């Protein structure tokens, strides 16, 4: 089953002795439960009851010392260790492709402290985003990090996968929300970065681990920035005659120094979907959903400025309903349905980003390349910056059989990412790399950049035990045994 060979029983006993029998399992059924994250390709396979890749052991540490014990044993025995927090990653990052140990962080879920003077909260990595926000909201705070996976993802995973929540235009991406980190290195040593607002004492070490997806270390504790719950939240929607006009208006928001909580510009295909119950939009029209969330005074100023910009661009004001409806029902799309998970169906999302100079070109090229393969797409632009933004290209299609659907899935990814890369974009804005985009890492970073990442990996993890093969790292040290079917998006 696994690609590693070690005496599972003996190692199990050894770990049990150190951290307690209740915190370890090698039961077959439990191992199958950890053979998946939320990567659509893996789910397509699981739908056919493909139960690999399975870990040999699952370990639930409850303290940093537990993790240190496990990593020391894993290093001595060269056992792969795959960390998982929420298990909501969509790129296969938490799949135990080479067997070994799954380290489930969810039992490390303590809230270690709320600093109401500095406006920070310190938590362990396995606390779910939802649990953190429940704790904060009754006290009048929020981190503002609101990914659509908030029920199923955890704080450690937010950092490990460099997540961005839907309100990130106002509250920042997760790397901006993290003040400091505690990380167990592959050799079991503990690294703590200082809890300070900023530092210029050389490179920012915490950023090395944010986005490293469990390949450089296990994130165990995080101090995060918090904000007061907003005094006022209001919704607005505008209908633009076309995508370009909508995009220009959004850019103008930034030129006028506006930082709204939510800016979501939909292409014509997704506009039809979003406006379905409200209006039948003219051909080519694109809807912009907005959320203002701040003090009452600021909200009123934002509203006035935004309305002026949009109306000057020829947009039709649609009132608050479409945007409010989206907010209230924003999770609906993520429940499993026969539409995307039925036999022979394929779906996923490409989340890419580019500077404004390239953004629209990238969108059109990706659409063209992907739709040529016979899938439907709909897209939105939902994370904006003064200099550019992301695109979230959803595709859905079908094929004659589940196996064919999986092959087609990989082809769609390949042409989509190729188009994004040629247009000057990054191949992931917020979903990370995992296995899916591992082959694209050298393309993204160039040979020099990727060699540097490989060297860091080699230095930190000479035995290549931590999440081997993810981010495309460590594959030289141990020839890739990740099954080809587990590699989404064929090599570029």
């Amino acid at each position: 089953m696994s690609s590693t060979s070690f005496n599972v029983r003996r190692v199990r006993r050894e770990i049990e002795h150190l951290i307690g029998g209740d915190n370890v399992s090698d039961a077959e059924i439990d191992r199958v439960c950890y053979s998946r994250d939320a990567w659509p390709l893996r789910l397509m396979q699981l739908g056919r009851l493909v139960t690999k890749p399975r870990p040999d052991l699952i370990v639930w540490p409850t303290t940093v010392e537990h993790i240190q014990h496990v990593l020391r044993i894993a290093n001595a025995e060269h056992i792969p260790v795959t960390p998982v927090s929420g298990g909501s990653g969509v790129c296969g990052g938490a799949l135990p492709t080479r067997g070994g140990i799954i380290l489930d962080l969810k039992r490390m879920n303590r809230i270690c402290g709320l600093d109401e003077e500095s406006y920070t909260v310190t938590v362990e990595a396995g606390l779910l985003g939802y649990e953190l926000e429940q704790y904060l909201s009754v006290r009048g705070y929020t981190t503002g990090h609101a990914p659509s996976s908030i029920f199923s993802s955890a704080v450690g995973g937010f950092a490990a996968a460099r997540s961005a929540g839907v309100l990130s235009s106002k509250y920042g991406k997760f790397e901006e929300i993290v003040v400091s980190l505690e990380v167990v290195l592959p050799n079991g040593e503990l690294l703590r970065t200082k809890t300070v607002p900023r530092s210029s004492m050389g490179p920012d070490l915490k950023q090395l681990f944010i986005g490293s997806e469990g390949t450089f270390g296990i994130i165990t504790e995080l101090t995060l920035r918090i904000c007061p719950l907003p005094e006022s939240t209001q919704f607005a929607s505008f209908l633009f005659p076309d995508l370009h006009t909508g995009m220009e208006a959004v850019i103008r928001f930034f030129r006028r120094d506006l930082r709204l909580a939510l800016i979501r510009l939909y292409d014509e295909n997704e506009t039809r979907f979003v406006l379905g119950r409200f209006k039948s939009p003219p051909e080519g029209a694109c809807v912009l959903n907005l959320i203002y969330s701040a003090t009452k005074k600021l909200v009123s100023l934002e509203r006035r400025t935004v309305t002026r910009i949009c109306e000057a661009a020829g947009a039709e004001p649609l009132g608050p309903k479409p945007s409010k409806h989206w907010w209230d029902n924003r999770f609906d799309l993520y429940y499993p349905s026969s539409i995307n998970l039925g036999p022979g169906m394929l779906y996923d999302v490409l989340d890419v980003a580019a500077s404004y100079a390239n953004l629209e070109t990238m969108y059109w090229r990706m659409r063209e390349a992907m739709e040529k393969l016979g899938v439907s797409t709909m897209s939105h632009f939902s994370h904006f910056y003064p200099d550019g933004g992301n695109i979230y290209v959803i595709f859905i299609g079908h094929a004659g059989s589940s196996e064919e659907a999986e092959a087609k899935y990989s082809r769609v990814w390949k042409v989509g990412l190729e188009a994004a890369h040629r247009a000057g974009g990054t191949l992931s804005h917020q979903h990370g790399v995992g296995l899916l985009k591992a082959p694209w890492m050298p393309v993204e970073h160039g040979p020099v950049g990727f060699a540097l990442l490989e060297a860091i990996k080699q230095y930190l993890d000479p035995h290549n035990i931590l999440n081997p093969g993810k981010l495309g790292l460590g594959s030289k040290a141990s020839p890739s045994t990740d099954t080809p079917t587990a590699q989404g998006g064929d090599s570029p």
Partner: protein
Amino acid sequence: MSGSPPPSSSDALDQFAKVSRLCSLCARMCRHACPTHVATRSDACSPVGRALVVELYRGHKTALTETPVDRLYQCTLCGACKAWCKPGHELPRIIELARERVIQEHRAPLGIIDLDQTVSKHNNVYSEPHEKRFASLAPVLEQQHSGDNVIYFVGCTTAYRHPEIATAAIHVLNRLGVTAHILQNEVCCGSPLVRAGYTETARTLARQNVEAIATSGIRTVLTTCPGCARALKHDYPKLNTPLPGSTTVFHITEFLAKRRRQLQRLLTSPTTTQGSTSTAVTYHDPCHLGRELGVYNPPRQLLQLLPGIRLVEFQNTRDHADCCGAGAVLPKTFPQLAAEIAHRRLDDAAQTGASLLISSCPNCKQHLTSHQTPSSAMPFLDLMELLARALK
């Protein structure tokens, strides 16, 4: 009464195949609300984990051996998953059907290995003598009043463990002029057996109760136990043993909430625990009463009637209320897990700042009070007890 035999559980499981498949592939949208997952924080002990057991079993990829069976029984069937599921997938029903299959294959977990025999022999889940079922109710029983006649279906836990709830309920009914009739041949409603997968034994019990209700001639049935109400209303038709056509089953809070005006007139004195002017109480929604029967407002409407009582809600309340841990025989199969779930709910109760914990279920009372610790030892009353005190 018996009708045609229902399909065997594997056929029935196949009828739900689409749902169990989709749940097994879900992005874990309800896992955070599953009390057993929150307590164990294992993905195997979660809605998706259980759906996966069912799918692997249906696909002949796993047998119902010890660990898969454990995962199926580590569920309180509280319905929290369903409440968080936008498409409303009936995962609890699938787990019930899978358990039925476990029982058919003689793979019951240790804690309930002879549950069906116990209930068949004693007519109750506690191995108590049947003739003592209503022993402590004798003084208040069968007082004739001028108003409505109802059957009060007492249920095992109320009868043998918390007769104070029955006494209080009968007192409240009597004050309203309602005559509460007890079925002398009442037996266990069968709910614990349905939840555990012992469908055949449950059907036999259901027949006896249906027969007793039919011959009573009374067509209004009240319960103080949400599990009994659910069994009579929803499980009996599924077992092909429906109640006589015109019978209406109410949880007592629904019945009383309809008589709010009358109750209001009877309520005069302040109902405070310590004689203070206002007592903060919190209300725990029992899973069977809330998520299964949709009864959220009636208990709150009754609380509102009580002078000096102020309701402070749990953070997770109504359809998102957390289970107490007593559901679906978990205290018998996995007592430690059941205890941990109870401790969490009690801690949450303490967080509300209330000084009194109220609920409307003898099983919640039984389970939560038996797991109170010095730090979570808030007085607990069934809503009927609180009402009865106010009506003294």
